[in-house]
């Protein structure tokens, strides 16, 4: 009786040991796989940045930030004599900044207010409807946004490709991002803080503007920066709304250039190919800085 018992116990410990060894092997195997795939994923990011730097750096100089893009003939002459293409993309840089600034001006107030509305009335049926529509808007292909804005603004308001049309298209793309990020960052505020303000007799609108918005400011900023970096690279809607412009333009009703539009134009012109890479490098750098900035803001909030 005793012997069989001992035998059983022995067998069980053996089994358990066997299991723990197998578990360790499985664990290692899984960890290895995860690390392998994650390395593949991030290596693409480094490959993209690396090839932009390698192919684009020699075009980056002072003129790149201060002059407009040259015409095809000048570029061809420079290339055939072994020089870099003269000129730069200042019309695209300024155009992009102009478009993004105007789009932000339209989208941020609307987006933040709608986001606060959704947060304040989270269980309301109308709010649920708005939330669903926001998700739909986020899923609308950018070329469709471009087409619609072409119909609304280009055809009926500015009667031609314009800064206004481009900004409206970009603002439409920013809106859902800002609405949802506002709502999410408002949700992080503890209710007790709102109650504290209300218990001091603070009127409702002041609770929003003096307590909720300042408290969630870093969250709002993060959302806005990410939305901006998202629309900075949009090309399709701009093709249908602002078209492009070889010169710098500040008029709301005239076409303007943008960096992604220039990349597309350079792509279609065999003499300009070198400028593609430097423009891409600029765009990547800009987006990267915005992303790092938003990460930094988030980290500071959590500290």
């Amino acid at each position, binding site marked *: 009786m005793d012997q069989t018992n001992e035998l059983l116990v022995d067998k069980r410990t053996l089994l358990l040991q066997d299991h723990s060894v197998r578990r360790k092997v499985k664990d290692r195997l899984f960890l290895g796989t995860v690390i392998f795939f994650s390395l593949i994923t991030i290596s693409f990011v480094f490959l993209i940045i690396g090839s932009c730097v390698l192919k684009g750096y020699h075009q980056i100089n002072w003129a790149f930030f201060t002059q407009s893009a040259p015409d095809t003939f000048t570029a061809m002459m420079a290339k055939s004599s072994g020089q870099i293409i003269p000129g730069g993309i200042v019309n695209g840089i300024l155009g992009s900044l102009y478009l993004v600034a105007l789009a932000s001006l339209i989208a941020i107030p609307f987006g933040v207010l709608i986001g606060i509305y959704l947060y304040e009335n989270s*269980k309301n049926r109308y709010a649920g409807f708005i939330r669903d529509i926001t998700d739909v808007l986020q899923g609308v292909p950018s070329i469709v946004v471009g087409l619609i804005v072409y119909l609304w603004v280009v055809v009926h308001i500015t009667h031609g490709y314009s800064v206004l049309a481009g900004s409206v298209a970009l603002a439409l793309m920013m809106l859902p991002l800002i609405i949802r990020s506002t709502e999410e960052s408002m949700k992080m505020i*503890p209710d*007790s*803080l709102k*109650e*504290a*303000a*209300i*218990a*001091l*007799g*603070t*009127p409702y609108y*002041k*609770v929003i503007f*003096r*307590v909720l918005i*300042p*408290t969630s*400011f870093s969250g709002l900023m993060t959302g806005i920066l990410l939305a901006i970096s998202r629309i900075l690279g949009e090309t399709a809607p701009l093709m249908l709304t602002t078209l492009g412009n070889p010169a710098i333009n500040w008029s709301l009703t005239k076409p303007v250039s943008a960096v992604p539009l220039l990349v597309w134009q350079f792509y279609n012109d065999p003499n300009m190919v070198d400028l593609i890479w430097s423009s891409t490098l600029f765009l990547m750098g800009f987006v990267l800085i915005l992303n790092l900035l938003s990460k930094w803001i988030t980290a500071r909030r959590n500290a």
Partner: protein
Amino acid sequence: MMNDINGTDQPPILSIENLSIAYDKDKFVVKNVSATITKNAITAIMGPSGCGKTTLLRAINRMHELYPNISTQGGIKLFDENIYDMSTITLRRKVGMVFQRPNPFPTLSIYENVIAGYKLNGIRLKRHERDEIVETSLRDVTLWEEVKGALHKKGTFLSGGQQQRLCIARALAFKPDVILLDEPTSALDPVATAKVEDLLVELKKQYTIILVTHNMSQAARISDNSMFMYLGELIEYEDTKTIFTKPKDPRTEGYLTGKFG
């Protein structure tokens, strides 16, 4: 039924008259409560979870109206003025509130937190007025000596007990008539709790205090009058000594002796 406290000759500052509150239709959480609150005294509201004590407290500065679908019957009078006829803004300046968890505004400094009520309401003050309000309020909550060198640091750097006293100072800054406290020490350690309790005893000289508490011994230690609520009803309202030594209702006795709760 009016529950009058005998033996005190202070005039009533607040009277609750047949107050009933329902969250949903016919689901009453406070049932026909009437009581008069004595001035310059600490009134404790006790009772098991879900007895309606917090709702009753929040009804006094109409914070309960934040909940959706709330319906209120009966009335509350502050100095013979019906609070449901006052604007919530005026009412909440006269009736301050301190919450369960310390909730200083994280974006504001200690100094700004104390005068947050003025700032948020857009009341402009001269610099010396502001300084005076901040200093007296912080002295009233015995926080002044601890923070006077760090007034412009964020309030969230303080310890839990200090934060709670800062929140009391924020409520005091308006010189309210009544201060409502909703389990103000339940998130604090015993030392910080003792400090807040001493502070409340000191504050009742100037203010009328209503305190919701889960902690019977706290009610026994510092309150002058006690209410016992059960399932939305006000079962017993007496001066604290009587309610703890000679409870009239068997339910009160059962709760106080720990038979349920």
